[in-house]
């Protein structure tokens, strides 16, 4: 039971982290129709910027400055990169963001090297907040949960209650009409791209100390974020939330329960062979759940796409 609670908390942390990334990605997608492959790269930039800032002024200023820097960078990419490529169509746009992801990884390696950098959580949060059945829950994890929830509520408020949010929502469905009403739609696009990448930056800052700050972190999380928004339904913010939490819990639980597939084979009446090295099924006999945990999201995505191509909560298929 204690393990379940611990797993629930860990899964929540992973899920909310995924949501910080997927919310921006899905917002950008529903607005511009661009699936931003480089989104996770901005998450990585957030972590590295915060690390660099933390060397001079500590963790807390970095929590604000790094995302702002990332957001400005994202807006510049939209203004001078994506808007230019947009004229060639959607496939070149995807290729552009893919190339950008490669380039950002190389740039990060150029400045900070290939190894993990020592980016650590602030000393003020390095203690165990409470214990569950002998397992300590670090204060930093609780802090991550609160930051993510605060951002989610803020996003919800801005999108549904403010004038800017109304214009954004209108521009989602009828960009031409909104433009005709006198709003600067390209500017809105640039702003949304900037804010989306800034959210990814926040995720990077708070995840960097826990998951490690290294050049591969973007590709490690990047494809999972894609999976998330595809499962949730492209363009659906609520779907992104549900899918993020689902994947967070799925991977966390799969990683801790040492379920052996041999028990399924025995249930089917098969006998464990004496000499495993000769059997063609030897991989199934030694397979455990933690081993296949990392590929469960991809399996889920393929299943969803086959059965319900527009995702769990999506209204349209892209």
């Amino acid at each position, binding site marked *: 039971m204690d393990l379940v609670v611990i797993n629930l908390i860990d899964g929540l942390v992973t899920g909310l982290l995924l949501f910080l990334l997927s919310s921006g990605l899905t917002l950008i997608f529903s607005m511009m*129709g661009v*699936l931003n492959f480089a989104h996770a790269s901005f998450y990585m930039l957030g972590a590295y910027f915060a690390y660099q800032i933390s060397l001079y002024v500590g963790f807390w200023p970095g929590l604000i400055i790094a995302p702002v820097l990332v957001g400005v960078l994202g807006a510049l990419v939209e203004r001078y*990169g994506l808007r*230019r*490529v947009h004229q*060639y169509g*959607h*496939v*070149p746009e*995807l*290729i*552009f963001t*893919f*190339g*950008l992801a*490669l*380039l950002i*990884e*190389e*740039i990060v*390696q*150029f*400045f900070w*090297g290939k190894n993990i950098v020592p980016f650590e959580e602030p000393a003020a949060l390095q203690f165990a907040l409470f214990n569950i059945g002998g397992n300590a829950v670090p204060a930093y994890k609780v802090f991550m949960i609160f930051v993510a929830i605060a951002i989610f509520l803020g996003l919800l408020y801005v999108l549904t209650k403010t004038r800017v949010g109304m214009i954004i929502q209108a521009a989602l469905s009828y960009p031409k009409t909104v433009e005709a009403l006198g709003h600067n739609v390209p500017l809105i696009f640039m702003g949304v791209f900037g804010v989306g990448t800034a959210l990814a930056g926040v995720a990077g800052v708070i995840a960097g100390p826990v998951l490690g700050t290294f050049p591969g972190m973007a*590709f490690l999380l990047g*494809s999972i974020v*894609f*999976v998330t928004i*595809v499962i949730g339904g*492209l363009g659906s913010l609520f779907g992104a939330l549900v899918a993020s939490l689902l994947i967070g819990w799925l991977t966390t639980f799969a990683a801790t329960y040492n379920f052996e597939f041999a028990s399924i084979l025995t249930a089917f009446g098969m006998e464990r062979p004496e000499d495993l090295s000769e059997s*063609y099924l*030897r*991989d199934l006999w030694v*397979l455990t759940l933690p*081993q*296949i945990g*990392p*590929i469960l999201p*991809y*399996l889920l*995505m*393929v299943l969803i*796409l*086959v059965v319900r*191509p527009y995702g769990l909560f999506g209204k349209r*298929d*892209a």
Partner: protein
Amino acid sequence: MTQTAQERAHVSAPASGITLSRLMPWIIAILFLLIMPILFGSNSAITIMNQMMITIVFALAYNMLLGQGGMLSFGHAVYMGVGGFMCMHIIRMVEKYGIPLPLPVLPLFGGLFGLGLAMIIGSFSTRKAGTVFAMISLGIGELIAACSVIIVVFFGGEEGISGDRTYGLPFFGIEFLQQKEVYYLLAFWTVLSTILMYLFSRTPVGRMANAVRDNPERAEFLGYSARWVRYFSFCASGFFAGIAGGMFAINYEILTGEQLSLIQSGAILLITFLGGVGLFFGPIIGAIVFTLLQTVLSLQTEIWQLYVGALFVAAVMFFPGGLAGVLMMHVPAIRLGKLHLLIVPYIRTLVPAVLCIIGVAVILEILFHVRHSAPGDNEMTLFWITFDSHNPVAWAIGAVLALGGFWLARMSAPDLRDAWHRANTLDGGAA
């Protein structure tokens, strides 16, 4: 209006019958392939050329999807990889059980297994083009790549699987012990698959793939199922990717899970796009240039991937047609016989531009050295000159090259634009 439409149809329809001028590029290419090992006989040169040929076949197969079918795949290395793994298993079985199978037919088996996998995956992934297809290909790619460490029986886990190609039945006395023999085997398969892929693009299915890429709705109104057209292209592409995998297995005699990864899939996208997706021969140029770039640059500098990445992003932004597209832009000028007008302006713009790029590269290299070399190790060598990387003079030279080159190129760019305009207009026509 009917007349112009007819004329246009006449121009665009492929002329029937084989003429010498249409065969010429193929004959030259084949002769070129035949004499290359005689000109460059060293083992390292042949290794590079073998790598090139494998990449050519794979890139052409990839372009059947991206260029001809408009489908962007992020997981195409899987089909090449699975074909290669199957070939490796066949090589091992030949070694173990003594099956009488000559090595030269092996890529065919790779192709068949690539085709089989593509038929399964394509049955649901080709339902939609565009973003959904790209996402499914990414998911499947990651899935199979992740399986490579789980299913050890087939993929061999971390160390991959290896075999020995020389155990096969001797083929007219050739046992493929030498690199040169392998070269000619790979050259045969390269030529054969290139011809087949070219012919495929001329068949009605290949033509319909273009139509579905450009306007699926209209193709459906004409009575073609966009989905089935996509499915056929996808299967054909999987087949040729599998052949490339078989060639890879013969050449390297080892396959690892790395061969299936997103990195490989991304690399082939980069190669194809750099070469040019709009033209059949584009990926060939891309494969040759990229392999050369990889070998030359990776020997010279540690940050070659940064340059390649920057080149790729620049190509997507400014030259969506790739290298082949840039070459083909000059065809009208050649037809008008005015190419010579461009030579001087080109030199006047490109030389400063190259200087600017060299300047930027100098600064990057020095910066990289300053950040990542061991403390106290200030000496670095660049362009055969050894100097102190903390010396401001070196930085200044780089900066002057970069800024000066940029400024000069910028100054002469309007001249180039004028010359371009003149070279592409008929004499006496209203420009």
